């Protein structure tokens, strides 16, 4: 009965790990608590996105992850 939180890009450094298992189910409030204040602050920023089960949420505050789901925290990107 767990959800996997993935930390992408610079959030991985802030988290000090690439992923973390937390208890299912997980909503927005639960996520903010699970990741700690520093990452919670980042999540408050518009330009940080959240994906659940491989889909980016149009409104991350509607997060509802269940057992076995993967939640990815997506900071601003840069490629090329």
């Amino acid at each position, binding site marked *: 009965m767990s959800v996997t939180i*993935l930390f*992408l*890009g*610079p959030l991985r*450094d802030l988290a000090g790990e690439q992923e973390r298992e937390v208890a299912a189910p997980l909503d927005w409030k639960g996520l903010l608590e699970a990741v700690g204040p520093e990452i919670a602050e980042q999540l408050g920023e518009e330009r940080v996105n959240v*994906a659940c089960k*491989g889909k*980016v949420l149009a409104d991350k505050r509607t997060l509802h992850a269940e057992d076995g789901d*993967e939640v*990815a925290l*997506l*900071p*601003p*990107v*840069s*490629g*090329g």
Partner: protein
Amino acid sequence: MSVGEALAAFNAAHDGAGGVVSFLGKVRPEGGVKALELSHYEPLTLPGMQDLAEQARERFDLAGVLAWHRIGVMKPGEAIVLVATAARHRRNAFEAADFLMDHLKSAAWLWKRERRDDGWHWIEPRDQDHEDLARWN
């Protein structure tokens, strides 16, 4: 498959197109950069690139599109990204390659960091990159 082999295959596959444009992006050996690391989130990154290529194909009436992006650690001089576009008219091929690169730089699910003498630094797109992207809206 090397960059040269990929381009040769792409050219051969699009014999009927009047023009083929390619862009190859490499790690620049400057600013004390020792290495570059690109990371991705496969469930989003790959479908996102496929969707981007399809957008380019429709918008610029392309005969073909190639979009490659490496992940992992790369050294100065090494290739990071390769795009190629084939079209009936050269302007379309040029614009499509430009469009693809602007999106891969600042609107694809990729994260880049540089290793300099004092360690790793995460890179965000420059203001110029955001302006380049905004041209297509």
